[in-house]
């Protein structure tokens, strides 16, 4: 959302720059011609374009989400209740935290498939530390440490050895999940209830679950990073054109490495939260999470070719998927149909996006 952008002038609305009078003449005019717009002119005319683009890109998802909510509220009396919405939010929190940081990875033209396994191993480590008598902070730190390690391995393999990100993280997906199974003999490791209760089922003002607040905080931080920081700008540049970014003097490798480390850290933290919610660390946890995460990011409008992505779009994408699941459960639709619906929504979203972009170019 383009906070801080100058408002478009009401007279011209969301015109694109090419249709504005004189714009084309400017480009074609001979070198000596006076073509200097005023300062206000230069920054305002452009802002209108950005706002216009964000507008038409973000609004589509909101409409889809509203349609889903309206449809289910007609089909089930339990759907449109505060409790159910809190359920949806809790259900989306793990997915959301991981998807927020995955957005950064995908914007930088990367890919991190190892997040689901990292969540599981981090949960297992959380449980093991608690069962060995460790404190809550130590357990959470352990989980985050797992994420840090996986992120570093991914990032170094990709940026130093130049292994393809898809292959690298597919391999670490398998290895990390395997470690979780070996460590636990494939058994879920429960831990005593009081541990980490604040994190798993704690609620603050208006009964908002702590995990939901954490998720929102992660989204805000990622948004601030992408929108306002040099690192965020570098991510977009690296994803948009890695060669140009390198030749502009940006340390491309370091930027990509940071993206994978951040993705790992957030997966580790999400693992601790999931373990806290379940009072257990399970090696099967978050199986296939990586696909939902990538789906949410793409649904949100990110390009797998890099250089483009919207973190709030990712949140909406994650919400759409979780709401759809929740609604279908409430309306007693079999989980097999849920799979079909899930895939259909994903396809629909990317097809619309493709068509929209086709028109633009």
């Amino acid at each position: 959302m383009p906070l801080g952008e100058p408002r478009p002038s009401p007279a011209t609305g969301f015109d694109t720059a090419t249709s504005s009078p004189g714009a084309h003449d400017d480009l074609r005019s001979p070198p000596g011609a006076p073509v200097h717009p005023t300062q206000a002119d230069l920054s305002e005319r452009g802002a209108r374009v950005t706002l216009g683009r964000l507008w038409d890109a973000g609004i589509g998802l909101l409409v889809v989400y509203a349609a889903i909510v309206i449809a289910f509220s007609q089909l089930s009396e339990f759907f449109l209740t505060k409790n159910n919405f809190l359920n949806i939010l809790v259900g989306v929190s793990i997915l959301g935290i991981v998807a927020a940081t995955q957005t950064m990875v995908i914007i930088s033209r990367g890919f991190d498939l190892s997040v689901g396994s990292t969540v599981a191993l981090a949960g297992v480590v959380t449980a093991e530390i608690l069962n060995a008598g460790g404190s809550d902070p130590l357990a959470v730190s352990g989980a985050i440490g797992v994420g840090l390690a996986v992120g570093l391995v991914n990032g170094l393999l990709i940026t130093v050895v130049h292994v393809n990100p898809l292959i690298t993280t597919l391999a670490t997906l398998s290895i990390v999940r395997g470690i979780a199974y070996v460590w636990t003999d494939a058994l879920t490791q429960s831990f005593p209830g009081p541990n980490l209760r604040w994190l798993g089922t704690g609620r603050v003002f208006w009964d908002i679950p702590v995990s939901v607040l954490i998720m929102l905080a992660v989204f805000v931080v990622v948004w601030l990073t992408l929108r306002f920081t040099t690192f965020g700008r570098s991510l977009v540049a690296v994803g948009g054109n890695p060669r140009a970014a390198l030749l502009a003097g940006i340390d491309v490798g370091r930027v990509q490495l940071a993206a994978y480390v951040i993705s790992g850290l957030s997966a580790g933290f999400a693992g601790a939260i999931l373990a806290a919610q379940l009072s257990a660390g399970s090696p099967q946890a978050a199986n296939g999470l990586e696909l939902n995460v990538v789906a949410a990011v793409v649904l949100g409008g990110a390009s797998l070719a890099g250089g483009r992505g919207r973190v709030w779009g990712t949140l909406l994408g994650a919400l759409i998927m979780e709401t759809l699941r929740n609604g279908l459960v409430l309306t007693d639709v079999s989980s097999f149909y849920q799979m079909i619906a899930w895939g259909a929504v994903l396809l629909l979203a990317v097809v619309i996006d493709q068509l929209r972009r086709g028109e633009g170019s």
Partner: protein
Amino acid sequence: MTPSPDDPRLRLSGIAKAFGGIQAVRGVSLDVRRGEILALCGENGAGKSTLAKILAGEIAPDAGTIALDGQPIHLPDPASAHRMGIAVIYQELNYVPTLTVAENVLLGRLPHRGPIVDWDAVNREARAILAPLAPHLDPRLPVAALPVAERQVVEIARALSLDARVIVMDEPTAALSQQEVHRLFALVRHLASTGVSVIYISHRLDEVFSLADRIAVLRDGALVDVWAVNQTNRAELVRAMVGRSVEELYPRRESTPGEPMLEVRDLSRVGKLVDVSFSVRTGEIVGVFGLLGSGADVLVKALFGAVRADRGEVIVGGRSLGLPTPGRARRAGIALVPGERKEEGLVLGMSVRENLSLSTLSAISEWGFIKQRTERTHAVEMVRALQVRTPGIEVPVGRLSGGNQQKVVLGRWLQARPRVFVLEEPTRGIDVGAKVEVYRLMENLAEEGAAILLVSSELPEILSMSDRILTIADGRLTAEFRRGAVTQEEVLDSAIGGAAA
């Protein structure tokens, strides 16, 4: 309806083509006679390649007619151009690297018995086609195994094998060595003597004068003039191509170089660069000229650390960077304006503002946060200073014209206030007006004490802009010349020297 011998081989009447709002070809009417070699000259963007693509059947003209031997023809696709006997050899090579030379030459019409390809016939035919051009070339080698120049030969052989009545060659010598150029010329003359008409597109004036019967000049999409080769001269041709005299094109200046600012010592990379050493002083413009594959491009990238050198040292302002990385080079004050603007210079999806600030992000930020207002102000100032013609700073940079995009890349580095500018083909593909502005900017920067390394394949540009000229061939510096004390031929000879020897 037999074609009369008086009809020209090819007659273009009122050919026009626009892309978007830009008129690439404006009402070109041109006759090409039987057995004639017609040179088509013009600056980048003058419409030469568009005309070639129209003749190839690759793009359809908006207006105008084409007649071959007096018969009006229609070229809806490349296959019909082939059937009519019009072959176009492009600048960009179109071969399948994993297939053999013979397969590429005969692609789409391999000799066969029933469904079985007759490999003996394939290799025999290919050898026959290649014989006059490159007798040593083994048709059974995969094209990927050949050096670039020989791949071009394969491309030319393919076009020749079509029994063409008209052959269009779009800058065919860009990748060829001197010997290969001579062989190609002999071949072109031979073809012409058998009645084939050749349209030879080039901006290399030496080639044009030694090969062509007539010379046609395009400027801004329109045909400016056509001369018999002995009725014109180089100066007249240049004036026709650029629309102004050379003196107006290149600003002259008195240079008083100071201390060495950029020093390069023994920069080497296996197979690409051999012990390259030179220096550029403050206020000095040093030109580097090399043919394709000479290593000039590698030198540029190695200097900036975008290609890793094996050995050597880069020193900026007396401080050694060792072997630079892009980050270190930038911080030391080296600016790189790369040759491939869209692939290497710009992030096309980003706005003008974002592209302008890419190399100064840390300077305009606090605690990692970009100071929004500062960024915007800088962008507006730079757009004004360089007269970038853009509707606004938030417009995606991909919408700007080539010249204005180049100004954005330059502007990015100007904001970083570098001490050394490395400019690779800074005027490639931009119109004459923007060229002059880039030259003026270079002069101003040099006057303000910047050290400028100009790497270009445009000889007139190198000769007119440089205080000193270095030539590079096979990864080695082969000669050094002073401004004014050298001719195009001498520079070209030194640049070819290594490759031909």
